[in-house]
Structures are given as structure tokens and as C-alpha cells.
């Protein structure tokens, strides 16, 4: 009986241990190592056959050199800062686009809602990579967007959108909008329509009722959506690589270059660890918001 319970509880812990904690430990270890012309390209490596002395020697060779290095080259902190800026702005844009969509869905006739929900989720059925490549086709100089705008006569010369930050924002907003829409929709859908009628009855116009009732009551959905967009957007790598230009500084891109172009695994791992530390703050805040939401529902 007790064993059964222990077993059931241990399953998620074992899962986390194998797929999260151990890999994290390995990355942490690499970040404390030195580069080497070897396979794998860092030193020291743990040699358990050597016994206690070799383990002691292994630990003595670890140091924080790589973290110190991150502060010497301003590329890194600039990338972190630029990532934060892009993630913030993209989250805000997602909110601007996502809230009206969620609002529209929640106010649509009942029989329409499953279809609208499907339309929001449908893009996930195609590979993320293919969808980002499709945006390259849309945004490039001879792309669909430019052709369309020229055909409309809005512009004479094709616009340069691809390989700029604008393309990165478009890519992030497009990709992560469903993560914004769904939590907001789920709070708006639960909103009791008679609350808005009560607001109007007590003297609100439709607009004030929206700001005083709808928005505060969908706050938890808005917060959840913002974190769900902000957290992955901060470490985003594919979108800035494919849609961004050489001027687009994002930490995900730097990380990739350190690993694969420079083959500097220790520095790359240090970059990843710092990124994780930065992300812990919003993740903790997100969890707290979720908890509040659960409590409010009880």
C-alpha cells in the first residue's frame, strides 16, 4: 500500500530528475569547465576509474571563468538586454492582437465558438519551422506582402521587412498569439454577462463597463497569457535566426553561435545558465498567478 503510493508519487519526480535535473547539472558542469580541442570540446571530464583523487582533481579544475568572461564582452549583456526588450514589446503586441480576438471569440454565438477555437489552434498542426519559413516567403522583397501592397498602389518600391527586427516581431506575435488568446478567452468566457448589465444599470457606458468590469475580471488570463508569450520569446532562437537580420541581437542566437559556430561549449553553457536565472523570475511570478487563479475559482 505504502509502496504503491510512494511509486505513484515518485513517477513525476523521477521524470524531472532524468529529464531536467541531470541535464541541468551537466550544463552547469560544462559552464564551469574550460574549452579544449577534444571530443567533447571541454575539459575536465569526470573519470570515475581514477578513484577519489581524480574526483577531487576534477572538482578543483572547475571555475567561474566563463561567467566572468560574459561580463568582459559587451555582446552578451547587450544581447540579454535586447532579448528582454524584444520579448517585452512582442508580448505587448501579442496582447494588443490577442485580447480583441479572445474578446470576439468569447462574445461570438455559441455555435461558432468551437470553429473559432479550431482556427486559433489549427496552425499548430503544421511544423513551427515550416510556418516561419512561410513568413520568409511572405515578407521578402519579392514576397506576397510587397507584391500585394504594390498591386494596391500603397507603395512604389518594395519594403525591406525580412531580416529586420520588424520581421522578428511579426514572427513572434504570429507564433505566440495563441498562447495569449487561449488563457484570456477562458477567463472572458466565464465572465457572467449580467455583471456588465449590472454595470450599465448602475450608470456605466459600455466603454466604462469594459474597463471597470471586463478588464479587471480577465486580469488573471491576461497575466497568464503575457508570461506564456514572454518566457519562450525571451530565449527564442529560430525566429530571429530566420527572420531577423545581422542587426538582430537575441540571446538565443548568441547561444547557438557559441555552441555550433565557435564550438565554445563552456561559454555557451554559461550563457544558457544566466538565461535560465533571468527566466526564473517571470516563471515564479507566473506560477503565483496560476495559484491565485485556482484559489479564486474555489
Amino acid at each position, binding site marked *: 500500500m505504502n509502496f504503491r503510493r510512494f511509486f505513484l508519487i515518485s513517477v513525476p519526480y523521477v521524470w524531472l530528475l532524468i529529464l531536467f535535473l541531470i541535464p541541468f547539472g551537466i550544463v552547469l558542469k560544462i559552464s564551469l569547465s574550460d574549452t579544449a580541442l577534444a571530443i567533447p570540446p571541454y575539459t575536465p571530464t569526470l573519470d570515475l576509474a581514477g578513484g577519489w583523487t581524480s574526483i577531487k582533481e576534477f572538482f578543483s579544475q572547475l571555475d567561474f571563468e566563463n561567467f566572468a568572461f560574459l561580463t568582459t564582452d559587451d555582446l552578451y549583456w547587450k544581447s540579454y538586454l535586447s532579448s528582454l526588450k524584444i520579448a517585452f514589446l512582442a508580448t505587448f503586441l501579442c496582447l494588443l492582437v490577442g485580447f480583441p480576438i479572445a474578446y470576439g471569440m468569447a462574445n461570438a454565438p455559441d455555435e461558432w465558438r468551437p470553429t473559432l477555437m479550431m482556427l486559433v489552434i489549427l496552425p499548430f498542426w503544421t511544423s513551427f519551422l515550416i510556418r516561419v519559413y512561410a513568413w520568409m516567403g511572405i515578407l521578402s522583397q519579392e514576397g506576397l506582402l510587397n507584391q500585394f501592397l504594390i498591386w494596391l498602389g500603397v507603395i512604389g518600391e518594395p519594403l525591406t521587412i525580412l531580416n529586420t527586427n520588424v520581421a522578428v516581431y511579426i514572427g513572434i506575435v504570429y507564433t505566440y498569439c495563441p498562447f495569449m488568446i487561449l488563457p484570456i478567452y477562458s477567463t472572458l468566457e466565464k465572465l457572467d454577462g449580467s455583471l456588465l*448589465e*449590472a454595470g450599465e*444599470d*448602475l450608470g456605466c457606458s459600455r466603454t466604462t463597463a469594459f474597463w471597470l*468590469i471586463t478588464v479587471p475580471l480577465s486580469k488573471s488570463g491576461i497575466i497568464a497569457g503575457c508570461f506564456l508569450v514572454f518566457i519562450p520569446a525571451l530565449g527564442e532562437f529560430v525566429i530571429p535566426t530566420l527572420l531577423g537580420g545581422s542587426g538582430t541581437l537575441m540571446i538565443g542566437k548568441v547561444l547557438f553561435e557559441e555552441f555550433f559556430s565557435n564550438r565554445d561549449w563552456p561559454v555557451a553553457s554559461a550563457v544558457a545558465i544566466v538565461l535560465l536565472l533571468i527566466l526564473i523570475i517571470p516563471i515564479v511570478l507566473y506560477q503565483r498567478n496560476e495559484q491565485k487563479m485556482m484559489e479564486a475559482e474555489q
Partner: protein
Amino acid sequence: MNQPAVSSTFEPWTDPQETPLISFKSVTKKFGTFTAINDVTLDIYRQEFFALLGPSGCGKTTLMRMLGGFETPTEGVITIDGKDMANIPPNKRAVNMMFQSYALFPHLTVRENVAFGLKRDNMPKAQIEERVEEMLNLVQLQNFSQRKPHQISGGQRQRVALARSLAKAPKLLLLDEPLGALDKKLRQDTQFELMDIQEKTGTTFVIVTHDQEEAMTVASRIAVMDHGELIQVETPGRIYESPNSVYVADFIGDVNLIEGNTKPRGDGKTELFWAEGQAPLVAECPHAPDVEARCTFAIRPEKVNISKERPDTQINVVQGKIHDIAYLGNISTYKVELPNGTMVKAQTANNRRLARRDLTWDDDVWLSWTETAGIVLDQ
């Protein structure tokens, strides 16, 4: 100026000089092909406690929502205080509503909920404070002002909703099944509280309910509705004593219905031949035509006397056999089977101890009633 004579009873609807606060003129409301309200004409006066009563789907809520401004009539005119309400949105009406679900704002405290409407009017802060305090005192919730709606009980929530809807001192308060979510005991207490508050504030109340007891208790007048039409608009007493149709008689309280052919006597009363070989019943028929017709005789169980001995009177006396007895503590209902199989219920107050009751199952008994106890209704 001629002051109308102050009468002890409040009956503005009988005074032709009185102008109504609310007036529906041939109002029809259609949702697609469904007619929710069919050609309703109705006047409601100041300080009335007016009840809209009917089964669910009869249109009573739609009628009320039109007063609040949440629905617009398809045809006809609604005026409040003489003004046509056609294009006036809910937030511009001196009307407030207490919602069935209470619709308290869950993100605001009790105090903020009550102050919500006052703030929208840009009232000075000190005045808002004062008014909120006054309202919280009225509903006895001073100690709960800082709680959120989910932290108080159902009865308290109901009172917050009432305080919130009264805070702006509306000309008219609409109550949509206000006591539906409360248990029976609390509901009865709250009914008296509502009447108290209505009297204190002098506000006109319109209440929607499907509970006839509630309507009888609180209302100055009741409108009984069915299928979007007003069937009868009268005081509780008259609705009960003198229903104008079988529907109303059956909907309000308990009633015995006996069908028969009428033969008017010419003195306002009519004879009703209800069974072969039985003497006709005699009753008044204020609502039915004064001709021979197929009609229904309606009489309340408590107006039927039941006895073992044949009573002295010759009119409205029938013999039967006790089929069933329902003992309800304060009263007993006897179900008596007449010779032709009709069941008639007779109710007596149990002013004697149960052991001394002399009627029991299968006893032969006599039922009797006076000529004015029942009423003959058109079918």
C-alpha cells in the same frame, strides 16, 4: 388645489386622477418568430409593490428587462414618469435592477459594490461615503463592508445587491426573482424585510417571481401572466377570492374545479348543473357571460365545510365519502369523493387535538358552502 381624500388603504389604481409612474401601451416583444410579450397594456403607480407572476417562460422577465432598458419593445410604447423610454439606454434611466444572480462584482468589496453606481454619477467623495454607510445600515451589513462577495453568505449577498440597487435612490427598483436562491425560512424573513425597506424608502418596486406565496405576501398588486399576456391584474385578495379565469384560480393557491352547465337565475347568481340527479350548485359569476354555457365552478378548499351530519341549509350541499386525509399540523385537507367520482378537497383548521378528530377514512360526510364562497368561471 384639491387634495385627494387621504384614505387608509393604498389604492392609487382606483383613482382616475392619479398619473401612473410606468405605463405600457400595447407593448409587444418578439424574439425572431417567438412572441415573448403580446400586446400588453399596464399602468403601475408610485410607491406600488407590483408583482409579475407566472410560470417560467411566460414573459415576466422580458417585461421587466424592458423597464430596465435591456430589451426594447418591438411594438408599442413604454413611458416612465411620462417620458417615452424608447431610445434611453439602461445607464440613463432612473431605474435600478436587482439581478437574479445578484451580479455582484467579484473583484470589488461590499463597500465598493454599493458605491459603484454613486461613483459613476461623480458624486463628491464625502457624500458617497455617507450614502454607502446609510445603505449598509439599511441592510445591516456595516460589519461586512470590507469583505469580497465570495466571503459572505447567500443571504448577505442578496442584501448587498439590494443595497447597491437602492444606493442611487432610483424612482423604480426592479427585482428579478430576488429571493430565489435563499432557503425557505430566510426567504420569508427577507420578504418582510423587503416590504419594510420599500415602505421606508418609498421607492416603487416591481418584482418578478414564479412563487405565488411570495407575490401574495409582498405585493400591492399582482399581474398574473401566461404566454406573454396579462391574464389578471388585481390585489392579492381579489386575485385569490375572485380570479377571472380557471388559469388564475388554478395558478394561485389550491382550488376545486367542478364543470357543469350554467343557468343564470337573473339575480347575478347562476345555477350550475354538474351531475345527473344532483341539485344544482348556486354561485356568483362576475366574470362569465350571463347566458347558459359550459362553465367551471371554482371553490377554495378552506371555504368548503365538512361535517358528519347533514347541515340545515338546502343550497350547495353534497354528500361524499372521505377518500384521503392530509394532516399538515395546523390544518387538515380532506379529499372527498362525490357520487359521480369528482374529488373535492375540504380544509379545516385543526383547532382541536388530533385524538378528538371525529372524521376518518371512508366516512360518509356532507360538504357544504355558501352561495358566495365559490365562483363560476368561463372556460
